[in-house]
């Protein structure tokens, strides 16, 4: 039985309840959250690398952009309580990338400019669940939102959609990343409100 807050009514109009996970509220803008300065890696120095497969795989920016891409429309949910509906992205599906690498891993650890890492079970990034996105709303992704490219895993809290991604390592074990080592949940399912350790 939750504690009733005397005199609190709230806005009561937080949009379609089947699309807003518990504890979240809608925003129209696109808030920014990150732990440090925004990196600015020139595209000619940018590469995307998959480690931990039978052979290491790496793409330059031009090579990466030549991979088959998809347009994705998704609702996103940040652990800081905001949700945004119907965001439109373009990027390369993890199914496409993992199809190019021979491996038998169960997890990945994404790594990024700025030192950020985040961990994901492969079952949560395959079968059309995750992309490496480089366009947002029809435009190149802005640096403060993770450009030139970020992970997009919309069904998990948005810290899993790592900004400034440069690749990932395929692993047998689930190794906690940056926020996962700093008090945040190992998986982060917004519908189960898996925000913090112990949720």
């Amino acid at each position: 039985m939750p504690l009733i807050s005397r005199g609190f009514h709230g806005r009561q109009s937080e949009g379609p309840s089947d699309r807003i996970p518990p504890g979240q509220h809608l925003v129209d803008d696109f808030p920014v959250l990150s732990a440090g300065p925004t990196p600015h890696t020139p595209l000619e120095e940018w590469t995307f690398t998959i480690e931990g497969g039978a052979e290491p795989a790496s793409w330059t920016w031009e090579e990466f952009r030549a991979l088959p891409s998809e347009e994705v429309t998704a609702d996103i949910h940040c652990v800081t309580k905001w949700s945004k509906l119907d965001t439109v992205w373009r990027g390369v599906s993890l199914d496409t990338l993992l199809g190019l690498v021979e491996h038998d891993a169960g997890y990945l650890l994404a790594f990024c400019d700025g030192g950020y890492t985040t961990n994901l079970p492969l079952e949560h990034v395959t079968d059309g669940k995750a992309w490496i996105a480089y366009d947002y709303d029809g435009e190149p992704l802005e640096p403060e939102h993770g450009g030139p490219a970020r992970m997009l895993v919309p069904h998990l809290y948005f810290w899993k959609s790592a900004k400034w991604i440069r690749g990932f390592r395929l692993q047998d074990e689930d190794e906690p990343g940056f926020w996962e080592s700093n008090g945040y949940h190992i998986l982060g399912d917004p519908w189960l409100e898996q925000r913090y350790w112990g949720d």
Partner: protein
Amino acid sequence: MAEVVEVRPETSRTKTIAFDVSDWPGHRAGQHVDVRLTAEDGYQAERSYSIASATDASRLELTVERLDDGEVSPYLTEELRPGDAIELRGPVGGYFVWNPGAQGNVLLVGGGSGVVPLMAMARQRSAEGSTIPTRMLYSARSWEDVIYRDELAQLANEDGFDVVYTLTRTQPSGWEGYDRRVDRDLLAEVAPAPGALEVAFVCGPTPFVEAVAGALVELGHEPLRIKTERFGPTGG
């Protein structure tokens, strides 16, 4: 469960709310809590707020800025009074936290109510009797918008702690401090030299944090020594 024990105005837009939290485990300066409000019909709203106080038994203080179009902050600042109880969860966060082991220079850069978690750090430092060289750079619109003015003046008498203000919109007559937004030149004058900086904590609205963190990197500070916390409409 947290019981309100005191509500006191800080500025025209901010109030400090003190709670008694019976089973509070203590916290580290810089951490935040989640506040959950529930209406009689079961509707709930949750927001995160930085803790303003140093860890002190079961007492916990939040300083909340009223956002006129906000959903939660007007309730916290205008409606809540001593004796009320609310649901409060935390402490949360393990990165943007004061590390008492630091030996080098610490820089705290706050924009507007972004000063709140930095104040928790200044208070924690003082409570521990720390002499770690620490400078706070505080950007506010006007002198009237500066939160914790008197207490900051007191803390600035302590060994190794000082405060530099910049007032970006209006300044009192005879103001001799900075009167512009924080930029690279200002940081070059106020921040420790690259190499001497142990860690910088930067908190404020996103454009403020982007500008400050970017300028510190341009000045040659290592990105990993710059810890940021941003807020925007999410605090509403």
